[in-house]
């Protein structure tokens, strides 16, 4: 009798498992795979003056099925240095912003995790509260702070430190500040989560064995918070690469980022296929850090 009962249980378990897996699967299919397939499809078609503004991939005529796959859009991206420069500009800006976020975010998260327990909730709230205001309004606020007749310049001129305003708006500097400001919470929160879980007895053990504070930090705290560093860096880097709004509002003529180039292909050149190819390449570029992140995470779980 036992084997049948076990197999019934196993069957039920399997059904349950499937049901549990089905939900994220359906979600992924609907919101990731389908749009991905659509963009891939457009990226392989040819631009046309029509509704929609690209040609078909399949055509059935004279009892033959014609399949059109145009790789020209991808080759075109290689033919012009603009696209490579724009990808590079985005990656550079995102990397810079991520590094600064880490440099500012780590001490913040560390201080929060070491703070007395009754303070921690308040500190967490202070990190998150600004994001309750609209993202756009916060970026606009930076325009008011950085502009020639803005807060900083008026203050510096007011106390007589400078005569004419320092140009900060519409520069790479402003873009970096904007991205760092907007994404800092995404760096602080995972770091905090890791640091708060840190087992105090490990630090005590290190101290007992005569390790200095700096040595303990480098050899115990830092390696144990690596997961948080990686998670936070990915959460900042990935959206920063595709960022469009911040460079559009705070950036200047020198700011060349892929989000803007994509916008131009789509809206100015009205070339949906090339715009789609650009988006596909950007996705592939982002896939590298995502896969790396995933590997790191699964290794950590083991």
């Amino acid at each position, binding site marked *: 009798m036992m084997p049948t009962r076990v197999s019934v249980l196993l069957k039920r378990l399997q059904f349950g498992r499937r049901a549990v897996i089905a939900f994220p699967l359906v979600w992924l299919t609907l919101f990731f795979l389908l749009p991905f397939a659509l963009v891939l499809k457009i990226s392989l078609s040819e631009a046309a003056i029509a509704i929609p503004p690209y040609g078909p991939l399949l055509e059935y005529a004279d009892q033959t099925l014609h399949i059109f796959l145009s790789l020209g859009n991808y080759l075109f991206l290689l033919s012009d240095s603009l696209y490579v420069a724009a990808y590079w500009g985005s990656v550079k800006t995102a990397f810079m912003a991520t590094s600064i976020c880490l440099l500012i975010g780590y001490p913040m998260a560390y201080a929060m995790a070491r703070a007395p327990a009754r303070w921690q909730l308040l500190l967490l709230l202070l990190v998150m509260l600004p994001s309750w205001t609209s993202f756009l309004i916060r970026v606009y606020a930076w325009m008011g702070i950085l502009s020639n007749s803005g807060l900083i310049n008026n203050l510096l001129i007011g106390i007589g430190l400078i005569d004419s305003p320092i140009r900060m708006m519409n520069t790479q500097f402003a873009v970096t500040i904007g991205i760092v400001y907007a994404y800092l919470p995404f760096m602080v929160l995972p770091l905090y989560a890791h640091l708060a879980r840190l087992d105090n007895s490990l630090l005590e053990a290190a101290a007992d064995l005569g390790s200095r504070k700096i040595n303990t930090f480098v050899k115990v705290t830092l390696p144990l918070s690596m997961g948080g560093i990686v998670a936070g860096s990915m959460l900042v880097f990935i959206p920063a690469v595709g960022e469009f709004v911040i460079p559009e509002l705070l950036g*200047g*003529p*020198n700011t060349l980022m892929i989000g803007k180039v994509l916008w131009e292909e789509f809206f100015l050149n009205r070339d949906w296929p090339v715009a789609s190819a650009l988006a596909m390449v950007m996705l592939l570029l982002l896939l590298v850090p995502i896969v790396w992140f995933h590997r790191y995470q699964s290794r950590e779980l083991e």
Partner: protein
Amino acid sequence: MGNIHKLSAAVVAISFAAAASAAHANEVRVFNWSDYIAPETLEKFTERTGIEVTYDVYDSNETLDAALLAGRSGYDVVVPSTHYFTRQISAGVYQPLNPELLPNLSNLNAELMANLEGIDAGGEYSVPYMWGTNGLGYNVDRVREILGDDAPVDSWALLFDPEITTALSDAGCGLSMLDSGDEMLSPAMAYLGLDPLSENIEDLEAGGELIAGVRNNMTYFHSSRYVADLANGDICVAAGYSGDIFQAAERAEEAGRDFSVGYSIPKEGAALWFDLMAVPADAPNTENAHAFINFILDPEIAAEITEYVRYANPNAAANEYLSEEILNDPAIYPETDTMQNLYVAIEKPQNVQRARTRIWNRVKSGR
């Protein structure tokens, strides 16, 4: 025309899109530029015809173009600008208008309509809504103070001449250009004495080079930020849309600034544009769309809109209802010899369009 209230327009468009999905028996769905109609106009239309209006707004031709090219926009009347129109006709976006339903067509200014022959011959698909120019907005007092009384405010030199722009920029007087190769390369070519509508890549390159030479004196390239900055005094010379610059001038006056903002149409030539009312091929309420267009062609209504938005209308019969102040303002209704130097941007072949965007990108980023 320009885009000022990007954020609010987007919010309004979203909230209206929700309302628009609830179908109405006797209605017309209009998709127009933001801040581009008088406050009473829609109410009057409903009073006169009994047709309810669902009115949504956009802030750029690109937004409208993407909505139309994706298909099934659900709108009955849309108002694209001239340089987007021809391509949209070829893509099959619009249906021909029925002149029998538009008795007010006779009010249109025939001389002005001649400018539209290259866009939509005979007005088969469109009726102009308003028109305007792209010229120079400038801070009258600051520019005089820096360049003296004979500052060339009636010339593109104010924006393209290396010496003049350096003098302005060094004096802390910011300059800006529209962030659009379409809109800046043509004036650059006109300033060089070339055909502003040239499709010759060498001409375009020459225009690009001219702008590259003054690029470092530009504070930024942006198509709407200059409105607020001209009014605040952060920028003192800007290439811009006529109506946007009038708005900046008004704001500066309201805020009691110690300077005034002026608008000029440069003598080398400037862009003349029309926003055209058209009916999408898949419009659900074709007849009501015609009723709406005919209503806008009513002289009193056209005059009322012009008084409010300060863009000229193409309605000859409307002149008698306009105030002297607007009718005699050469910035809104330019004099005849200025009109002769204006050009209407036409649709460009894909390779020329791409070359323009590319040259523009290189000029802007210095690559």
